[in-house]
């Protein structure tokens, strides 16, 4: 227990931005679900690449370009191995959103009118809008699995022989729910569908092994797991990727081009058109090395213990925390303070140097299901500490005094309580 709770203190000094004061107070960063901070090790790896190895990849027949190519390809191997994937099954994209757009475009191309895509009500816009738009264009049906009051999905996915794609978040960026994707993949396969997993909130926080889960595709972002922005990952099973058309066309994704036609490159390059984000790939590999050194089991245990502590500190304040109780859930705490709008709360907390998110968290349909227009959200990562949670609780108490909401009564809105 002592080792897990001290992880935050141990690593905090690796993060230069966490040493800087915010509004005159030490920064408490509780918005890692939006983007994480980066340790010195990642920043240095990118700097070293630019200072020593920078050139375009897969092109120049000179030493520098070879070194850049090796570094870029090794990053695929490192990042792929982190989730149990082979190098050729590890495609670098801009972020989770681009990975999911690639899939939505390429997978729906082979479907027939009337085929179904099963999503859930807890999806981030990035795992909803691409499917919705492509479905409209190609005459497909999108269905949404309901989310229970506790923020959980039904056990039976209600798939039919028309269901061709099941795409689901591994961990909700609003509720913290961890979905049983192994079981979901099994049901998808039994129905003859492929299983896509939005792992933007899972890969950064706990061990994920695509082989053990049996999923067909998995997407995540570098910037939410200590890596730089502009680099994301799409994992796909080799035989499925081979059967898919590219999403972007251009340089580097080709083997041979004539004026009439093009032969595409091997995996994963077939899906990586144009000059990629090379230094960012190197930075992501450094982030993976950093996480591996700490151990993802330890990262998760630390966040679990902090989540438990956050429930203990926040619930007595009359704060409603949405989603499942502590236990099988991640460190994303979406909450409502009666009578205080999430933006007003964010502004007041900011004055204490505390960064939280307020709003719909890119999940507007889910907000409707929860019966709120938005929530405040504190999301935890390995560098957070119990002290951060204490500061959060104290600042919420102060905010309640400003709004005179100690009676916890609901403020009448200007349209009589309706939204």
């Amino acid at each position, binding site marked *: 227990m002592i080792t897990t709770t001290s992880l935050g203190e141990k690593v905090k000094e690796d993060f230069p931005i966490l040493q800087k004061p915010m509004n005159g107070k030490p920064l408490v960063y509780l918005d890692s679900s939006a983007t994480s901070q980066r340790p010195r090790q990642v920043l240095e790896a990118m700097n070293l690449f630019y200072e020593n190895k920078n050139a375009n990849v897969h092109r120049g027949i000179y030493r520098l370009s070879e070194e850049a190519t090796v570094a870029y390809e090794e990053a695929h191997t490192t990042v792929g191995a982190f989730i149990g994937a082979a190098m050729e099954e590890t495609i670098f994209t801009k972020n989770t959103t681009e990975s999911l757009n690639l899939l939505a475009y390429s997978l729906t191309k082979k479907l027939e009118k009337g085929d179904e895509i099963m999503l859930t009500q807890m999806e981030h816009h990035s795992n909803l809008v691409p499917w919705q738009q492509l479905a409209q264009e190609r005459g497909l049906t999108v269905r949404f699995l309901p989310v229970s009051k506790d923020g959980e999905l039904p056990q039976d996915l209600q798939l039919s022989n028309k269901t061709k794609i099941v795409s689901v978040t591994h961990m909700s960026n609003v509720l913290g729910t961890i979905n049983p994707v192994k079981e979901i993949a099994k049901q998808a396969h039994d129905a003859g569908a492929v299983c896509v997993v939005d792992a933007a909130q899972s890969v950064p926080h706990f061990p994920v092994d695509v082989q053990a889960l049996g999923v067909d595709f998995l997407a995540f972002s570098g910037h939410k797991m200590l890596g730089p922005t502009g680099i994301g990952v799409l994992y796909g099973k080799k035989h499925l990727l081979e059967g898919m058309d590219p999403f972007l066309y251009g340089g580097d994704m080709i083997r041979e081009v004539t004026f009439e036609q093009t032969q595409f490159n091997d995996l994963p390059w077939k899906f990586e058109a144009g000059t990629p984000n090379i230094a960012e790939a190197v930075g992501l590999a450094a982030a993976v090395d950093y996480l591996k050194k700490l151990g993802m089991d330890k990262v998760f245990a630390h966040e679990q213990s902090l989540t438990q502590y956050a429930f203990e500190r926040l619930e007595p304040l009359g704060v409603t925390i949405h989603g499942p109780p502590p236990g099988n859930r991640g460190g994303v705490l979406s909450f409502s303070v009666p009578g205080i*709008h*999430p*933006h*007003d709360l964010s*502004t*007041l907390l900011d*004055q*204490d140097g505390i960064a939280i998110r*307020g*709003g*719909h968290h890119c999940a*507007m349909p889910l*907000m409707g299901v929860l019966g709120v*227009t*938005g929530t405040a959200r504190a999301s935890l990562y390995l560098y957070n500490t119990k002290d951060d949670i204490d500061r959060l609780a104290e600042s919420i108490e*102060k905010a309640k*005094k*400003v*709004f*005179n909401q*100690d009676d916890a009564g609901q*403020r*009448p*809105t*200007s*349209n009589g309580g*309706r*939204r």
Partner: protein
Amino acid sequence: MTETIDPSYAGEGIYREFILDHYKNPRNTGTLPNASFSHKEFNPVCGDHITFTARVSDETIQEARFQGHGCAISQAAASLLSETLKGKTLEEIKTLQREHMLELLSIPIGPVRTKCAMLGLVALKKGIEEYEKNG
């Protein structure tokens, strides 16, 4: 229990008493019978919304009301704005800018929260635009 709150935190900051008063007791709320126009405006950042409704004659606002849901800044700003509308011509309202809302609020507003402060005015101006387009 009455505890004093650090003035730099609340009193001198955004959440001054009159802002909270307009938030908790918004003026001129609801809808109008025989309204000339009504427009609902969303803030995409948070999903907050305000609908401004007004009765117009001689190109002048006779009465205006609003309703909606949102943060203290958006609701207080709309309430403060609603108090200044009666007797104003549509042309006058169309010239109102960000500075006008900041003046009404007279509190420090950063770039992100400026969208909140502007929500009511944007709803009103778009309502006028639609009203004029529809003749």
